[in-house]
């Protein structure tokens, strides 16, 4: 401590001396003193005296050699840099790269990527660590193996560790030693790595060739077993994923048909503007987001989505109330006119949204709903979809409670079953009608709110969903909530079952044909109303 302090003081003193232009003798004397102190300090820091300076110079030498014309010199230089360098060299390499010719640029690129990824292996963010591990694995540079293994040993996160091990095994698969390859193949099999299949298949092909040597055959056998294992796993993960996708699509279908199930199912109103009420909910979410952006600090931004829920519900419900009071109430019992009138309303709403909002609308997913949870090897469940599944369950429970557990629900059911009798018994049918309609519309608003997480917010949003929603309600049986739930599960599940083998276009065609056939067989849907209803 004290020596370095003295050294510092002396240094300053020296500069002053130079500045003042004192005699050379004094300078050299102090310079000599300084030099001895410095070399002593270096020797003290590094345990092996003399070891550090050559390393510094070898990096320097390598840096100057990477631009060499001679390929072998360049490769050796790159090798040195990889072994001894770190991310600190990146700015300098970037500088070299900017001035170098094309072939040098291409030679330096993998080196820079490697160094960058190596530094990222210790990043605090799991995503960055994982990306770095994947990149090192796919870049195919053997020098990354020890880095990956060292990083994997200290890795707290299970999936990042998995990726690191996978990448290391993938790199080992390219090794010259058949034994290493066999072990690596077995490891990939153990890891059930889909990424390894291509490379493993190549090994199998080599082993099956006519000129295969004995060790190659051993490797091929190990690779074959690994592929078997991976494909087995792939099959099951595919089954699980397909199930999840089916459930997810069902939940999307369900959430958009719930409002319709009440408006169309219970009240018998064919509201063609129902999709536009979803659009109102989606735009309410967008507006809330813009308000949060403009007026609230950025660290509470993610809360906009929660705040938008009641806003979307109320915006859509009040639009519904207005629609009911101004158009639909005059048309009860006249389905054709209702249909035409509400269709007109839907066109007006759509063009109004287009004129007012234009196309500069996007809802940014709040942080927690981005990305996905990895539950198994190769199986990702996106958070936004899990969220919608949860939301649809909550909505169903809320509706069941409202309809079957509350006073309002009893009145709603009474009015929808027999309007005249309910009126006789003193139920204000007019009021119940408008509340029910508003409730159904509010549910459409919630659907719009939730769907901003999977789709876009644009004026055509309602049109995209309305046909599917009607299909679900009709298939399920008009007037039965349970029917809507079962139908959305059926249609969603079936769609996802068909889609992998026939593609999205034919998947949709098949579903429509099946629905038509089904309705031929059971015109009133899955759960037909029993007994006398108000309409019949």
């Amino acid at each position, binding site marked *: 401590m004290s020596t370095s302090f003295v050294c510092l003081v002396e240094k300053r003193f020296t500069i002053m001396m130079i500045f003042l232009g004192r005699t050379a003798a004094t300078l050299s004397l102090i310079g000599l003193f300084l030099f001895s102190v410095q070399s002593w300090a270096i020797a003290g820091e590094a345990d092996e005296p003399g070891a550090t300076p050559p390393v510094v110079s070898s990096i320097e030498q390598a840096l100057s050699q990477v631009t060499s014309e001679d390929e072998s010199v360049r490769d050796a230089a790159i090798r040195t840099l990889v072994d001894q360098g770190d991310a600190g060299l990146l700015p300098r390499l970037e500088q070299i790269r900017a001035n170098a010719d094309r072939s040098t640029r*291409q030679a330096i690129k993998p080196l820079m990527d490697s160094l960058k990824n190596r530094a990222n292996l210790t990043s605090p963010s799991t995503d960055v660590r994982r*990306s770095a591990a*994947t*990149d090192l694995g*796919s870049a195919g540079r053997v020098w990354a193996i020890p880095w990956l293994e060292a990083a994997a040993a200290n890795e707290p996160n299970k999936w990042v560790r998995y990726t690191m091990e996978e990448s290391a095994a993938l790199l080992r698969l390219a090794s010259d030693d058949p034994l290493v390859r066999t072990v690596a193949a077995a490891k990939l099999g153990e890891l059930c790595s*889909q*990424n*390894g*299949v*291509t*490379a493993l298949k190549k090994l199998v092909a080599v082993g099956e060739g006519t000129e295969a040597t004995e060790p190659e055959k051993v490797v091929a056998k190990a690779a074959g077993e690994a592929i078997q294992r991976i494909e087995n796993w*792939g099959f099951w993960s*595919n089954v699980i*994923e*397909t199930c999840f*996708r089916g459930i*997810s*699509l069902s939940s*999307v279908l369900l959430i958009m048909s719930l409002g319709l199930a009440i408006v169309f199912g219970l009240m018998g109103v064919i509201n063609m503007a129902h999709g536009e009420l979803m659009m109102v909910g989606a735009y309410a979410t967008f507006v809330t987001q813009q308000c949060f952006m403009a007026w609230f600090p950025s660290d509470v931004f993610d809360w906009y989505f929660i705040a938008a829920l009641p806003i979307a519900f109320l915006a859509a419900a009040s639009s519904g109330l207005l629609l009911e009071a101004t158009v639909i109430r005059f048309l009860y019992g006249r389905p054709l006119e209702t249909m035409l009138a509400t269709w007109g309303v839907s066109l007006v709403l759509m*063009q109004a949204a*287009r004129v007012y909002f*234009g*196309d*500069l*609308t*996007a*809802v*940014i*997913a709040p942080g927690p709903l*981005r*990305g*996905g949870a*990895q539950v198994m090897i*190769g199986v*990702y469940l*996106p*958070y*936004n*979809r899990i969220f919608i599944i949860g939301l649809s369950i909550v909505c169903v429970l809320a509706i069941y409670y409202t309809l079957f557990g509350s006073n309002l629900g009893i009145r709603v059911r009474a009015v929808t079953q027999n309007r005249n009798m309910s009126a006789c018994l003193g139920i204000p049918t007019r009021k119940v009608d408008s509340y029910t309609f508003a409730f159904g519309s509010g549910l459409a608003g919630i659907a719009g709110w939730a769907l901003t997480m*999977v*789709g*876009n917010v*644009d004026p*055509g949003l309602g*049109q*995209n*969903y309305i046909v599917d929603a009607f299909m679900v309600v009709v298939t399920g049986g008009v007037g039965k909530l349970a029917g809507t739930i079962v139908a959305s599960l059926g249609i969603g599940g079936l769609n*996802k079952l068909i*889609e*992998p083998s026939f*593609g*999205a*276009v034919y998947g*949709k065609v098949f579903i429509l044909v099946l629905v038509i056939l089904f309705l031929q067989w059971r015109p009133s849907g899955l759960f037909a109303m029993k007994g006398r209803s108000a309409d019949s």
Partner: protein
Amino acid sequence: METNKPDKVNPVEPDKVAAGEQEGPSRRELLVKGGKIVAGIGVASLLGNLGNWALSYAADKEPIKIGILHSLSGTMAISEVSLRDTVMMAVEEINAKGGVMGRMIKPVVVDPASNWDLFAEKAKQLLLQDKVSVVFGCWTSVSRKSVLPVFEKNNGLLFYPVQYEGEECSRNVFYTGAAPNQQAVPAVDYLMSKEGGGFTKFYLLGTDYVYPRTTNKILRAMLLAKKVPADSIMEEYTPFHHQDYQTICGKLKKFAAGGGAAVISTINGDSNVPFYKEFANQGLRAEDAPIMAFSVAEDELRGMDTSALVGHLAAWNYYQSVDTPQNKQFVANFKAYCKKNNLPDGEKRVTDDPIEAAYFGVYIWKQAVEKAASTEVDKVRKAVYGSKFLAPGGEIMMDAANHHTYRPVLIGEILADGQFKVVSRSKGLVKPEPWSEYTNPDKGCDWVGHQGTYQK
């Protein structure tokens, strides 16, 4: 409606005649004035061709009518309104500099409302009723196919500004957007090159209609010709407005496992957002499998949540970020124009490839009219062949015979602000080939040496 009437142009336009004067005298005065000009310039005409021009200037000072046929409502409005604005801006610029051959340009704007049948009807109206000299319009291929017979039957002239699938060679259309060999083919070439990442597996994903189907047909033929094994090519289509990309992203993940896979996306319109979102949410990154899109440009990206798109690629012939002095001017002018006219989003508007193509289309036509000294379609057409123009993105050239445009090809990477960073640029201009060498090697398009499409 006013603009759509078959008007016998009223010469008394307040801005051209001194205020407060009566119709009669003003016309006479105008003629006298015109006569004087003729007399004055007539002397000059001895020196060269100028007299011709002056005569026509005096003879019909009435404005030249042009048609603008872009959807202003309906699903395509989101893209097409910008093109209307661009053409209007170009017209305003030209008029401010004295018009074409001294005549003002008068745009007739109609709204085909994203309805393909209405496109044909409105085109007919423009050609027969309004008698416009030229029409700038259309976006989707289906709308172009719908107006094609109208233009061919009535010998009209259409400037079509959007990249398309090729396999068309009409005498009455000038295509200022890219042919497949100026967008799709070079984009895949780039992905296969060492510099582009050396990809070996391709997932061709598109919306189910003519443009993606034809483009993918060409790309498949090209990939097979380049010895990419058939099982390394996947082709898949989704219906319009498709929202659920779970299954496709799942398949893609499996396809991309092991590396070397790229996605070629011809997905159109509102399906893009759900696709990119699902892609990112399923744990896929641009490094694992980049998406090369042919229908995503700056105008579609503005306002989109770009977080899921960063690092993916697109292929176009122009980007707003192209660094030329005339482009900086063009972008600034466009923003100023949108702001001045109180168009939605004003200064936040961006330019993109179709906007540039729509813009220079107007100037190509202007140059041709001036060269031909006439607005007659047959003369203008000949004058367009081989003409050059310094467009915002650099100089472009019309082909000498096939009605398409020589343009540079640029591969861009999407940045977080919705702009593109150019990662690859073609050497010079690429010659347009409406008939792809991969799917129709024996066909060519030539309206000078042949009668349109011919067998080589």
